[in-house]
C-alpha cells in the first residue's frame, strides 16, 4: 500500500508539483476498486438495458440477438404488473411494521441501556450470523398451521384463510423479521446522537412525556427513520426468498418473476425488462421520498 502523505504537506510545500503528486496517488488508490465497480456494477446496467431490448433469433428458441424491441417492456409489464404491485405493497407494510417494532428497541438501547449498549447491539446483529434462508425457513415452523401462533389468531377469528403459512401474511411477517436489523441500527445511530438536555428542557417547560417525544425526540430521530425505512424497503421490495418459502404461488413478488424468467425460462429480454423497471421504480421512489423527508445526509 502506498504511504499516505501528511495532510498539511501540500499546504506547506504549496507548489503545484506536490499537489499533482497527491492527486496522482489518490487516483492510484482509487483505480483498481473503482474499475471493479464500474465494470461489474455500472456497465452491467447497460447490458441489462440492451438485453431487455433484444429479439429472439428466428427459428432458434432460447436465443436472442440485438434489437430495439421496446415492446418487451409492454408485454412483460402487462403480464407481471400484479407481482410489481404486490412487491411494493408487501415491502411497504413490512417497512412500517419494522419501524414500529424497531423504534422501542433502538430507543431503549440508545437511552436506557447504559453500559449494556454494545452487548445489546451485538445481540441485534447476531441473528444475521445464522443463514438468511434457514431463518426464513424457520418461520415455516413458527407459523405452522397447528402451531401456537396460528391457533391463537384463529381462536380470535383474525385470519381470513384460517391459516398464516402460504398466505401473504406469512410473506410480510418474514420480510419484517428479516430486514429488522437494517431498521434498528440507523434508528439507534440517530437516537444516540440526540442531546439528552433537549429532552430534559422540554420536560422543564412542562411538556408531557408524550409531547416531548412528539416535538423533540421524534423530529430529531428523523434522519434515522429515513435511512432505516430505505434500508428496509429496498431489499424487501426486491426479495423473493420470503415469497418463495413462506407464500403460495398467489403471493409471488417481482423478484420471483425475474428469477424464473432468467434462470428457468431463459427468457432474458423479459427478465431484464422487469429488472430494469424494478430498479427504476425504486430509484424514483427513493428520490421523491428523500426529497419529501428533506434529508440528504444518508450514509
Amino acid at each position, binding site marked *: 500500500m502506498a504511504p499516505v502523505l501528511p495532510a498539511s504537506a501540500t499546504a506547506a510545500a504549496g507548489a503545484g508539483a506536490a499537489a499533482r503528486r497527491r492527486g496522482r496517488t489518490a*487516483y492510484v488508490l482509487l483505480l483498481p*476498486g473503482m474499475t471493479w465497480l464500474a465494470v461489474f456494477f455500472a456497465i452491467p446496467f447497460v447490458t441489462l438495458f440492451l438485453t431487455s431490448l433484444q429479439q429472439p433469433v428466428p427459428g432458434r428458441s432460447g436465443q436472442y440477438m440485438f434489437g430495439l424491441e421496446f415492446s418487451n417492456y409492454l408485454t412483460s409489464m402487462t403480464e407481471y404488473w400484479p407481482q410489481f404491485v404486490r412487491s411494493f405493497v408487501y415491502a411497504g407494510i413490512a417497512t412500517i411494521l419494522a419501524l414500529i417494532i424497531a423504534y422501542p428497541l433502538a430507543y431503549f438501547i440508545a437511552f*436506557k441501556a447504559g453500559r449494556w449498549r454494545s452487548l445489546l447491539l451485538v445481540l441485534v446483529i447476531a*441473528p444475521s*450470523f445464522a443463514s438468511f434462508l434457514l431463518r426464513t425457513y424457520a418461520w415455516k415452523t413458527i407459523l*405452522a398451521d397447528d402451531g401456537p401462533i396460528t391457533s391463537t389468531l384463529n381462536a380470535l377469528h383474525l385470519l381470513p384463510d384460517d391459516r398464516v403459512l402460504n398466505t401473504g401474511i406469512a410473506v410480510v411477517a418474514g420480510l419484517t423479521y428479516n430486514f429488522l436489523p437494517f431498521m434498528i441500527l440507523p434508528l439507534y445511530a440517530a437516537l444516540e446522537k440526540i442531546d439528552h438536555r433537549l429532552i430534559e428542557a422540554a420536560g422543564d417547560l412542562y411538556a408531557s412525556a408524550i409531547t416531548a417525544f412528539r416535538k423533540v425526540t421524534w423530529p430529531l430521530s428523523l434522519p434515522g427513520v429515513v435511512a432505516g425505512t430505505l434500508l428496509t424497503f429496498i431489499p424487501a421490495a426486491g426479495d423473493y*426468498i420470503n415469497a418463495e418459502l413462506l407464500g403460495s404461488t398467489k403471493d409471488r413478488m417481482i423478484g420471483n418473476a425475474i428469477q424464473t424468467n432468467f434462470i428457468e425460462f431463459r427468457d432474458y429480454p423479459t427478465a431484464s425488462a422487469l429488472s430494469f423497471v424494478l430498479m427504476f421504480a425504486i430509484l424514483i421512489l427513493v428520490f421523491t421520498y428523500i426529497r419529501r423527508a428533506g434529508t440528504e445526509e444518508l450514509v
Partner: protein
Amino acid sequence: MRWLGRNLVGIIGIAVLVYLFVPIAVIIALSFNKPEGKFNLAWNQFSLNAWTNLCGVPGVCDSFLVSIQIGIISTLAATVLGTMIAFALVRYRFRGRSSTNLLIFLPMATPEVVMGSSLLALFLNLRFPLGAVTVAIAHIMFIISFVVVTVKARLQGMDPRLEEAARDLYASPRATFRYVTFPLVLPGIIGAALLGFSLSFDDFIISFFNAGTLVTFPIFIWGAAQRGIPPQVNALATIVFLVALAVVLIGQVISYRKRKALQA
C-alpha cells in the same frame, strides 16, 4: 402501574430482542431433531445424528467448503480494494469525488435481484462461463462498498494529533503510516473484512444468478428446501452462528480492554 409506565420501553425492547432470536432457537432445536418425514419442520425425536454425522448428506459439506473458499477470496480482494478507496476519500482531494461517492453508495441501495440479474446479463452477453469465478467477481463487487464505509468511518474517527506527533518526532511519511496510521486503522479493516465474509458466506440471490452449476452453501439450502432440509444444514448453520458470535464478542472484549488500558 407507574413502574410499568417507566419500564415500558425496556419491556418492549427486550420482547423485540427475544423475537429476533425465536428463529435462531428453532434452527438450533431442529438440528437435534430426527425428522418424521422428509421435512424437518416439526419436533419429532431427539437425535445427535446430524452432529455426529455432519457431512452425512451428500453435497452439504462440499457446498460449505465452496462458500468458505469464495468467502475468503472475495473478502481478501474486496478488503484491499475498499481500504485503498477509503484512504483516497478521507486523505486526498481529487476531482470526481462526488461521482466516486455515488458509485460506492449505489450498490448498497440496489436490490440484490437487480445486481444479480444485470451481472448475469453481462456474463451471458460476453459468453463468460458461469461458476466460482463469476460468483467471486460478484461478491467482491458488492462487498467493496461495505468495506469503504466501515474503513472510512474508522479513518475519520482517528485523532489527527497522533499522526502529527509522529511527524513532529521526525518520522518519515512511510514510518508514520507503518507505525501510527496503519495500526490505528487496522481494527476497522478487520471489522470490514469480517462483515464482508459474513455477507459473502450468506449471500444467496446474487450468487444464484451467477453460479451456473456451482453449489454454495445457501444454494444448497435453497435446493434442499424443496425436498426437505436435512438437520445437518441446521447443525452447520448453528456452528457458523456460534463462531461468528464468539468472534464478535472477543472483538468487543479486546476493544473494551484497550479503552480501559488507555484510561488507566
